[in-house]
């Protein structure tokens, strides 16, 4: 259950929305989220199934050029926290690390219009306008990645999801794509 809370914090970061100053394109941001990070000698990246959901979310909702910087900074902050404590495994993180990550997610939550909650034991991500569910995450991880040493996370096995950061969206109008 503790894992679920931390997973909640982590996935909230993934789907948060906030306006900010820009430098990156959506494509660059997606690359940053999907790349492999090395923490304490071990490579981590998000799992393939999480990548699918991330792509789907980015497909529906644009990251404006004004927002990517904020997200990029949050990703860097999260990685630095994990590097500072030498692990991406939530089970091994000390209370201080969890506290820092909680503050990070609270900050994103406060500055964005992310819609996420814990309901019936699951982490539920809603669409940015609050109406309709985008995804639910149960305790199981269904898929791991391949080439590098990866840890897939939904309910908090590690903080790989934290690497995905938060991003800002504006709804795409679904006519001419």
């Amino acid at each position, binding site marked *: 259950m503790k894992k679920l809370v931390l997973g909640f914090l982590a996935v*909230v970061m993934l789907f948060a929305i906030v306006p900010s100053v820009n430098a990156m394109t959506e494509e660059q941001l997606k690359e940053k989220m999907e790349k492999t990070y090395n923490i304490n000698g071990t490579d981590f990246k998000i*799992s*393939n*199934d*999480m*990548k*699918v*959901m991330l792509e*789907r979310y980015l*497909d*529906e909702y644009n990251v404006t050029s004004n927002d990517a910087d904020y997200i990029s900074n949050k990703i860097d902050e999260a990685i630095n926290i994990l590097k500072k404590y030498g692990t991406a495994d939530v089970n091994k993180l000390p209370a201080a690390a969890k506290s820092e990550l909680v503050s990070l997610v*609270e900050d994103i*939550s*406060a*500055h*964005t*219009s*992310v*819609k*996420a*909650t814990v309901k*019936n034991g*699951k982490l*539920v991500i*809603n*669409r940015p*306008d*609050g*109406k*309709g*569910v*985008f*995804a*639910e995450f*149960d305790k199981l*991880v*269904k*898929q*791991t990645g391949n080439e590098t040493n990866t840890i897939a996370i939904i309910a908090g096995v590690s903080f790989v999801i934290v690497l995905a950061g938060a991003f800002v969206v504006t709804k795409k109008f*679904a*006519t001419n*794509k």
Partner: protein
Amino acid sequence: MNKKIIIKTFATNVAISFFFAAIFILLIYIFGNTKINYYASIINTVAVSAINEKEIEPVYKVETKRIINYPDYGKKYGNVVISKINLKLPLYHGDSLSILRYGVGHYAGSYFPGEGGTVILAAHNDVGYFHRLPELEKGDIVKLETNYGTFEYKVDSHKIVKETDLASFPIQKEKEMLIMYTCYPINRSVVGRKTERYVVYAYLVGDSDE
């Protein structure tokens, strides 16, 4: 004269009240507004509307193999039709236990039919669900009739795997592959928590609604 005094007293009191209230409100805005908005925003993270507006139907772009307006998690978006085993079940996006109560669940971490990647579907092994999945043979057709198009898949193979064998559920986008699974053993002589899965693999043969 008395009236004048009464009106003056009232007016003075009201004026003082508004003056002090204005000072308070100004102080709250200057010193507290950021904090109030900060905590309100955190709390509003879990403010989600329970009511859905009229849904916009998904639209499928064949050229790009992309879907506009993905179905919400928990929503029915089609049917699974397998003539060989006389099966027609509603297809939902998401595969939580409460969804599987009603039909076939589509794993949200896999692609949607038509996107050119792995589509993972799950259903219970009860009668009326996937209990006849083992009867499928190579060459049998599975149709996914979605609200944005119909997709046919030809069964290729099957296997029985441990529930933790995630490598048997590869998420990829090189080829459109359909993976259907259910808890195994299917028969009722083995009871309790099923730790194996009966998995059927099929590949896309065509899009009937082009």
